[in-house]
C-alpha cells in the first residue's frame, strides 16, 4: 500500500475536534476540590511547625500552619480569615500557584516521606467555604478623604486597592480591559479557574467598598500618568506585562495561524464555547515557560493531533519546572530541547511548517550545533516571553530596566514622587500571583504611611 503524504499547505485548523462531553471533562477542575473528609485527613497530616517553611516559602507569608490547624479543628471560616488577611487572592492562588516549588515544596513532610501536605487544596477548601457565605471577613477603617489611582485590575492592582480601602482610603482602578482579574481572567487556564472563579473572587475583593473601577481605560492611550499624579494623592502602577517578544523571522507578522501565546490563552479563557475555538491539527509551541506547557496541554485537550514544544536550550534550563513539563507530556505533548526556529514556511498565506536548527552551548553562549529539522505546523504558538510596558509609560520619568520593567525599591516606590509600582511590570518580578499580591500589599502600606504623614 503506497504511503501517501498529505499535500503541503493544507492549514488544518478546525473547531469542534472533541465532543462536548470530553471537552467538559478536559476543562473541569484539574485538581478537584477536597471533600470534608479529605480535608480532615489532609489537615491532620500537618505537624504545625515552628517558623513553618511553608509560610516562609509563600510570597505573601500566609500563616499556613495556623490555617491548617483551624481546618483540622473544624473552623474553616477561621482558616479563610487567616489566609485572606495575608493574601486577599488566596482563592486564586490556591488554584494557580506552583505550590510544588513554593509551600508544598518546602513542607517538612516532603522531607519526611516524600508526600507534602496538600496545602493548595486545603487553602481552596477554606476560601471556598468563606465564599459560600457570600461575605468577606474585612471591614474598612474610618474614611481618610485620600484618593489613590491604581492602574490595572490584576492581582497587584486589586490587592493594593483592597488594602487601601481597608485603611480607609478611596481607590480608583483604571483597567484597559472590560473585566477585572488580569491574567487570572485572561491567562490562567480554564481548568484551574472553573466556574468563573476569577470574576467571583474579584467581586468579593471589590465588595469591601471604596473602590471604583473604570473599564476600557488604558494608560498612555486614554489617560496620562502625569494627569493621574495631579488628580490623585498617589498612583500605583500595576500594568502587568506588555508586548510579546517576537522571533524576528520573516513572515511572522504576515502569516495566518502564527499566534502570540498570551493572546491565544486569553481567547481560550474568554471563549463562551470551547468547541468553537479553532485548534490546529499539528501544533508547534515555541518557548519553555509555564505558558508554553499549559497551552500545549490545552491544545491536546482541545483535540490537536500532535503538539510539539520546542525550546532553544536544555530541559533543565526551562523556566517550567519538572512537574509543569510532566503535565504537558502526560497530556500528550512532545518536548524537543536544543533547537531554535530559523524560518517559518507558509502556503496560501497561512503557516505550514517551521524550520529549526539544532543548538548547543559554547561557553555559555547559544550557538548552532549543526543539523536542522522541519516540523509541519497548522498552528504556531509563540510563548517566548513578554517585555515591559514602555509605551504606556512613554514620556514619564519612571526608571525602567533594559527589559522595560519599572525599577522599584523595597516599598515598591518607583523613583518618581507619588508613584508606586508592583506585579509583573516591575523589575525582578517573579511572575507569581502571590508575588503580585505582596507587591500590592507593601505598596499600600507605604502609600498609607505617606498619606497619613500628610493628614
Amino acid at each position, binding site marked *: 500500500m503506497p504511503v501517501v503524504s498529505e499535500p503541503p499547505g493544507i492549514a488544518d485548523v478546525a473547531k469542534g475536534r472533541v465532543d462536548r462531553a470530553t471537552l467538559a471533562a478536559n476543562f473541569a477542575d484539574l485538581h478537584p476540590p477536597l471533600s*470534608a*473528609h479529605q480535608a*480532615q485527613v489532609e489537615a*491532620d*497530616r500537618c505537624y*504545625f511547625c*515552628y517558623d513553618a517553611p511553608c509560610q516562609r516559602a509563600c510570597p505573601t507569608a500566609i*500563616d499556613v500552619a*495556623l490555617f491548617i*490547624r*483551624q481546618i*483540622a*479543628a*473544624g*473552623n474553616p*471560616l*477561621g482558616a479563610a*480569615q*487567616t489566609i485572606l488577611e495575608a493574601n486577599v487572592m488566596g482563592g486564586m492562588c490556591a488554584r494557580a500557584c506552583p505550590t510544588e516549588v513554593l509551600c508544598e515544596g518546602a513542607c517538612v513532610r516532603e522531607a519526611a516521606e516524600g508526600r507534602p501536605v496538600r496545602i493548595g487544596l486545603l487553602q481552596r477548601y477554606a476560601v471556598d467555604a468563606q465564599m459560600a457565605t457570600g461575605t468577606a471577613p474585612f471591614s474598612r477603617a474610618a474614611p481618610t478623604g485620600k484618593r489613590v489611582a491604581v492602574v490595572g485590575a490584576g492581582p497587584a492592582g486589586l490587592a493594593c486597592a483592597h488594602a487601601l480601602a481597608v485603611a480607609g482610603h478611596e481607590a480608583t482602578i483604571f483597567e484597559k480591559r472590560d473585566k477585572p482579574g488580569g491574567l487570572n481572567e485572561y491567562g490562567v487556564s480554564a481548568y484551574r479557574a472553573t466556574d468563573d472563579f476569577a470574576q467571583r473572587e474579584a467581586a468579593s475583593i471589590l465588595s469591601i467598598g471604596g473602590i471604583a473601577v473604570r473599564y476600557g481605560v488604558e494608560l498612555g492611550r486614554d489617560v496620562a500618568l502625569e494627569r493621574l499624579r495631579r488628580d490623585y494623592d498617589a498612583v500605583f502602577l500595576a500594568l502587568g506585562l506588555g508586548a510579546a517578544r517576537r522571533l524576528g523571522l520573516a513572515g511572522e507578522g504576515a502569516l495566518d495561524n502564527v499566534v502570540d501565546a498570551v493572546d491565544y490563552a486569553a481567547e481560550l479563557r474568554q471563549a463562551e464555547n470551547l468547541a468553537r475555538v479553532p485548534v490546529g491539527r499539528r501544533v508547534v509551541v515555541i518557548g519553555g515557560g509555564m505558558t508554553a506547557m499549559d497551552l500545549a496541554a490545552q491544545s491536546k485537550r482541545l483535540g490537536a493531533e500532535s503538539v510539539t514544544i520546542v525550546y532553544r536550550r536544555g530541559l533543565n534550563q526551562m523556566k517550567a519546572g519538572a512537574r509543569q513539563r510532566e503535565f504537558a507530556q502526560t497530556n500528550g505533548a512532545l518536548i524537543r530541547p536544543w533547537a531554535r526556529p530559523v524560518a517559518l514556511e507558509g502556503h496560501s498565506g497561512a503557516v505550514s511548517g517551521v524550520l529549526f536548527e539544532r543548538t548547543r552551548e559554547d561557553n555559555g553562549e547559544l550557538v548552532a550545533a549543526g543539523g536542522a529539522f522541519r516540523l509541519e505546523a497548522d498552528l504556531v504558538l509563540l510563548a517566548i516571553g513578554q517585555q515591559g510596558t514602555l509605551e504606556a509609560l512613554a514620556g514619564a520619568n519612571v526608571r525602567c530596566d533594559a527589559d522595560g520593567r519599572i525599577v522599584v525599591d523595597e516599598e515598591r516606590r518607583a523613583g518618581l514622587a507619588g508613584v508606586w509600582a508592583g506585579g509583573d511590570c516591575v523589575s525582578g518580578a517573579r511572575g507569581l500571583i502571590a508575588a503580585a499580591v505582596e507587591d500590592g500589599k507593601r505598596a499600600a502600606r507605604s502609600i498609607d504611611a505617606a498619606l497619613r504623614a500628610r493628614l
Partner: protein
Amino acid sequence: MVDLSVDFVGVKAPNPFWLASGPPTDRKSHVERAFRAGWGGAVWQTLSDAAPSAGDLPAARYRALHGVDRRVLALDGVGLASGRDLAIDLGEIAEVKRAWPDRALIVSLAAPRDEDSARRIVAQIEATGCDGVELNFSCAPEARPGTSEAATRVETTTRWCRALSRMPVMVKLAPNLADLVRRARAAKRGGADALTLIGAVDGIAGVDLDAMAPAGALGAMGGPAVKPIALAALAAIAGDPETAGLPIAAAGGVTTWRDAAEFIALGAGVAQVCTAAMTYGFRIVDELASGLSNFMAAKGYRRVDDFRGLAAANVADWRRLDRDRILKAEIDQALCIKCGRCHIACEDAAHQAIFATVDGERRFVVNEAACVGCNLCALVCPIENCVKLIDRSADAARAAAE
C-alpha cells in the same frame, strides 16, 4: 460582635484561655511569651515554701503516650517543680503582673501543712499583686487519697487560706472521681471561691520492653487522653446539689477550641491548658480564640457566659436513659469505602448485625432485626457521617400495635 473577655470570680481577663500551672508557667520569660502570644491568663507553677527534698529531681523527666503518626495523646512527667528560690519566683510574679495588668495571673500554691506556714506564704503571694491563689493538693499528700482525712485536709487548708487572703482562692482537685464530690464539698465548706478540675492524672506512659522497665515513674499525666475524665469531673460537680454552680476552671486535655467549648458548656468559666502548649507551643492560642469566636458567632452567643453550663443541665445518669427509644444503625452506601471495620466490630464485640456480602458482592449493610443501636459501628467507621443511628421508635411502636 463576639466578646471573649471573662470575669472569673472577680478576676478579669481578655479571654478564657489561661495556661495551667506547669512547666510552661514556671518563669517570667515563659509567661511573658505566652502573654505576648495572646493568652488571657496564666497560673504560675506551684510554689512551695518547703525546702527542696533530697528526692527532688534536678530537672523534669517526661514520657508520652503516642497515637497514630506520633501524635501526642498524653504527656506524663515527674520532677516538674522548678526548684528555684521562692524569692525569685515572687519577684518575677510581681514584675509580670505589673507589666501585664489586664491578664489574669493566679499563683499555684502547694497546700500548706499548717496555719503558720499558710499565713507566711499567702501574705508573700498577696504582696506580689497577683489575682488569686490556686491550692494544689497533689504535691506530697500526707493524707491517703480517698479517705475522709483527705477531704478534711482540703476543707481545713482551704479555710486557712481563704481567711488569710483578700484574693480569690481556687482549689485544684485530683480526679479520683469516686471521692471527688466529697472533696469538692469540703472545699466549698472551707470557703473556696472556685475549683480547678482536674489536677493531673496518675499515669505511666508505657513500658520499655528492652529495659524491661516502666517508661518513667508514676507521674502527672495530662493531655487529650485525660479529657473524658476531666469532663466527667465537671459533670459530677454540676450534678451534685451542694457543689452545683461553683465556679470552675477546667483543665485536662484542652487542645482545640472545641475542647474548650465543651468544658464551658459543662460549666467551666475558664479553660486551662498545659499539655497542648507543651506539645505545640504558645501559638495554639490563635486557633483557640478564632475557633471559639466563630463558634459563638455562628450560635449567636455574644459572651462566654451566654453558653456556660448549658450542657450541665442535660447530664444524666445512664440508668435514667430512655429505654423505649429504638435506634438502628444505617450505612450510607454513597459514602462507604468498604473497609469492613463496622462489620468486624459488630461481629466480634456486638450483635453480628452487619452483613459483609450482599448478592455475592462486598457490601456492608445493617441487619436491622439484629441491630440494637449500640453505636459501635458508627464510632469505628473512618468516614465522618457514614454510619448514623436512625430513630425507629415510631416504626417499632406501630409494629407492636399490629
